[in-house]
């Protein structure tokens, strides 16, 4: 049986206590929320923290506040099931409800949190393996080694950002609140990530993500499409998040963010810009989809071949746009598009 390595578990009741505990134990400590990402990684000895600071006991981290009109605030400890099933999120930020509802399996969504999903470790099929396996193939720089097995000539790690909600939150213009013993700050989700498989979060280890702040939903439509082998369990190997604000029949503002094709969610800004001021015609959609595929640069370290994931970027962007334009009719099942 795969077992956890030993650690000390702290169960603070307040955010302050948690931040203090983190500061106190420094590099030895890690935060754990649902544990659905961290515990498997620990069992494979990818992380061996001496101290775990559990966030479950902190009531303030749970729940959804505010309204779509003023903007919603979602506690980082809210489970993915709760996010997916929240009526206002489902109605007004449908891409987020969709993405949360497509994470892994029902059981994992009951345990995993939105905060954990935002912070979820990057993945690579040379990395998410047991200690023995990694030893057999040669350790990589993300843990115990010093090269990247996907791109051996590269100085950096190419593990893949594999969160379903991250590209969506980015496309929605969400911000996150980070709290540390030394103080707190609020940053754009777009500023939370960096394109490095190891240092994928622009966050200090002592900072706890406490809330996800969604801007007012008025006028916005959103969609999320996910590519994976099976309808359950599997991480995205491509995620397409599109958010549009329509002004009449024309696009007022647009964001397209791609998930799981780099070490960070990757915005397709050129493509999004091409939408602004235009009507969503099939021709425009085709052109924008082509443009959006540009920033999609997957490597061979997930399920499916990387040329396929690249190719599907265009198809999925087009389908998401068609769905938002009401041009569906031949796209993915409607439940996955909102």
């Amino acid at each position, binding site marked *: *049986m*795969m*077992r*956890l*390595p*030993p*650690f*000390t*578990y702290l*169960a603070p009741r307040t955010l302050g206590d948690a931040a203090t505990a983190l500061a106190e134990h420094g590099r030895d400590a890690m935060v754990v929320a*649902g*544990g*659905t990402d961290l*515990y*498997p990684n620990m*069992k*494979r000895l990818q992380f061996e923290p001496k101290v775990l600071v*559990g966030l*479950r006991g902190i009531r303030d981290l749970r729940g959804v506040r505010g309204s779509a009109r003023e903007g919603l605030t979602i506690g980082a400890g809210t489970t993915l*099931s709760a996010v997916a099933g929240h009526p206002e999120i489902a109605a007004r930020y449908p891409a987020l409800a969709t993405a949360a509802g497509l994470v*892994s*399996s*029902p*059981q*994992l969504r*009951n*345990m995993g949190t939105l905060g954990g999903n935002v912070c979820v470790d990057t993945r690579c099929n040379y990395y998410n393996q047991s200690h023995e396996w990694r030893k057999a193939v040669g350790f990589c720089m993300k843990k115990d080694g010093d090269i990247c097995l996907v791109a051996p000539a590269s100085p950096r790690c190419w593990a893949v950002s594999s969160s379903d909600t991250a590209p969506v939150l980015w496309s929605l213009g969400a911000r996150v609140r980070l709290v540390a013993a030394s103080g707190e700050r609020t940053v754009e989700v777009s500023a939370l990530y960096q394109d490095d498989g190891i240092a994928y979060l622009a966050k200090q280890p002592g900072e706890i993500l406490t809330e996800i702040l969604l801007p007012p939903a008025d006028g916005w439509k959103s969609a999320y499409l996910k590519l994976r082998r099976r*309808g*359950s*369990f599997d991480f995205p190997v491509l995620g397409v998040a599109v958010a549009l604000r329509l002004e009449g029949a024309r696009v007022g503002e647009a964001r397209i963010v791609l998930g799981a094709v780099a070490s960070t969610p990757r915005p397709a800004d050129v493509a999004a810009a091409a939408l602004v001021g235009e009507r969503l015609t099939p021709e425009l959609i085709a052109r924008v989809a082509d443009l959006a595929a540009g920033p999609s640069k997957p490597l061979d370290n997930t399920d499916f071949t990387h040329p396929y994931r690249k190719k599907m970027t265009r198809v999925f962007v087009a389908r998401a746009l068609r769905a938002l334009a009401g041009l569906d009719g031949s796209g993915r099942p409607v439940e996955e598009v909102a």
Partner: protein
Amino acid sequence: MKTRISLTVNGETHEVLVPVHKTLLEVLREDLGLTGTKHGCELGECGTCTVLADGEPVLSCLALPVELAGCEITTVEGMARGGRLHPLQQAFAELGAAQCGYCTPGILLTAQALLADRPTPTRQEVKAALAGNLCRCTGYTKILDAVELAALRMTGGSRVGDRR
């Protein structure tokens, strides 16, 4: 280092002295002798170890008992009440929904949570609810049939008589 933890399982409260890094799966099986909870990966990838925490299906291989203090845990051993099988257990037995039986406890509990939430689910809803439980034997067909049969009986339908 061991920690004293109080766990409520199937309505009984147990005080256990275990290392804090032992998962609920390990504590149930190795400390409480409740081996009805099975495991197929211990990494959250198969659903075999599913138990209910306050009625919600969770994976015992990724849950720590310290995190569940105060929760009501239900394992397969807690499904039958006073010697009477849960209608799901009855239906699974009657329809041959358990072949090797190894995935069965996890699936029964997941289904129990579904029926508590949605007493008359559609087949698609049953499929969606059980999408996190792998079974290698049955092709799921008889499992879906059995959940539907149990739902029917629990809501007063009587398509098939008791065949035990």
